[in-house]
């Protein structure tokens, strides 16, 4: 590819300007986050410019705040339930989507991705009507779990279906020839093969749930998840405490991202080690 540039007289200039553009883009992407993290250590009580000195006070406040603890607890509980529901439902649905003689398969596949395409706002308000006017449910973290699961499950379906599609059906036929019944094939052949996709889907669902805002806003009633708590705090401006909390959440998101990238590799290594020991 690179030899194309030799032809152009302005190759060097083009290269330089594209590189400068890329640098500006990365600055644009990371500067707001960097400013946020920097201000979380700023002693200035307005949580903003000018920088009057370093402090850990805001972090101390975050850890002492029982409202934040409450919201964190609700967030984690909701995220766990959402993860379990969407992993089970999504994995189960991926099988017939890939393997059955389904009529209108493409239509159904696109239909399954609709909850991702449709703005969360619409999922939120329509479920709000259903929960309050038809079922007469009290809004609670449980109703928020349902709303979030509607949104996160398609991601699991897509990930697991792709993996299920990708593996060699001969493996299963071989197991069957060797006498494994459906359950055994599932346990010893299929599940180990698609496990990385299931784990990735679960992790995805967990992270999406932790960050989800708009559906939760409509369905959680008087309770707070962390995003809802932050929203109520920042509606009227910035506070240094939220800067600290936000920085902590950014760190947590990044850790999850690192886990998502390294977990499949670590799992494979462990399995190899295990097998080597057995052999």
């Amino acid at each position, binding site marked *: *590819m690179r030899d*194309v540039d030799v*032809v152009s007289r302005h190759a060097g200039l083009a290269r330089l300007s*594209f590189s400068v*553009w*890329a640098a500006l*883009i990365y600055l*644009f*992407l990371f500067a*707001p*986050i960097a*400013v946020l993290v920097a201000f979380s250590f700023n002693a200035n009580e*307005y*949580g*903003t*410019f*000018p920088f009057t000195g370093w402090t850990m006070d805001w972090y101390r406040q975050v850890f002492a705040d029982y409202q934040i603890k409450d919201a964190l607890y609700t967030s984690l509980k909701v995220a766990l339930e959402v993860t379990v*529901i969407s992993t089970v439902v999504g994995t*189960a649905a991926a099988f017939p989507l890939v393997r059955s*003689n389904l009529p209108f*398969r493409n239509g159904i596949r696109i239909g399954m991705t609709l*909850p991702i*395409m*449709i*703005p969360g*706002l*619409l999922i939120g*308000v*329509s*479920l709000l*009507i*259903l929960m309050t*006017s*038809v079922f007469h449910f009290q809004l609670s973290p449980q109703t928020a779990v349902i709303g979030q*699961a*509607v949104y996160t499950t398609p991601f699991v*379906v897509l990930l697991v*279906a792709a993996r299920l599609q990708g593996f060699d*059906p001969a493996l*299963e*036929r071989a197991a*069957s*020839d060797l*006498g494994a*019944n*459906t359950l055994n*094939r599932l346990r*010893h*052949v299929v599940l*180990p093969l698609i496990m990385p996709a299931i784990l990735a889907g679960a992790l995805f669902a967990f*992270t999406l749930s932790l960050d989800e805002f*708009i559906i939760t806003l*409509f369905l959680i009633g008087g309770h707070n998840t962390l995003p809802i708590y932050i*929203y109520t705090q*920042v509606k009227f*401006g*910035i506070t240094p405490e939220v800067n600290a909390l936000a920085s902590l959440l950014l760190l947590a*998101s990044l850790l999850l*991202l690192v886990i998502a990238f390294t977990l499949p590799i670590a799992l494979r290594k462990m399995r190899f080690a295990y*097998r080597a020991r057995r052999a």
Partner: protein
Amino acid sequence: MEQQVATPPHALPPADVSAGRRGSRLSGLTQYAGFIPALLLYGLFFLAPFGLIVAYSFWQTIDYEVVHKWTVDNYRYFFSVPTYVRTMWATLWVSLAATAITLLMAFPLAYWLVRYVRKSLQGFFLVLVVVPFWTSYLLRVYAWLNILGEGGAINRFLQWTGVTEHPVSFFLYDRPAVILVLVYLYFPFAALTLYASLQKFDWNQYKAALDLGAPPRMALLRIVLPQMKAGMVTAVIFVFIPILGEYLTPQLVGGAKGVMIGNLVVNFFSGAQYTRGAAVSLLIAGLIVFLLLIVRKSLEVEDPYRA
């Protein structure tokens, strides 16, 4: 993996023949059993509420009670209030502007990645684009509040240096601020899709165009861009459509002048005007379906799950 398959099945029942012939395809209705949980979840909590919201949009609210009387009053009301209609047009305009700017910003980046970055490093730079996206949506909007807000960095800086005495809301609480933040939020989508479609491009064609005497700019416009159409349509879908339903960004940085149609929905619902809110929601949904139908041709891809 093969080793596991070969673990001796000691006392197992005889292999079922149907599975042996056709992989693990089950016969009859059992093959659809896996759909049952999904059908419950989506039938009950996605399709039913959607039907409900359609019905609500044609019902009436009288004295905070929903009356099951069919009417188009909710829609008529929406279109009879000039502010609402203006907001709808403004929403389309903001979405269009944000999408265009996002694509224009993302294209040179994708081009830079594909043309000037070593293959082994491309993955790293792509992850760098996605990292901010992986962090919370709310926090990404909030981060801009820190910079643009009334008590934000720019204003404090101006006051500190004595340029102004009172905080100016020039940067905030208007449409440009909304567009800026929307571009920030949706940039990774555009960058990823444009990168994917540029990467598939056969650069020999570009080289051939240059050999035949086309200036690079013309080769780019006439050879590269037309083949990226599918990628661009995908990018537009992933940027334009979600922006139509935006609530948080205009709420936090848009102020009174930056209101979008999503804010109207929330206002109606928090004012217990469910039927009017339902009508506005359905307008958004209709707009999205309309857009998807327009671009359907470019979306018709092969079924990736078919063997």
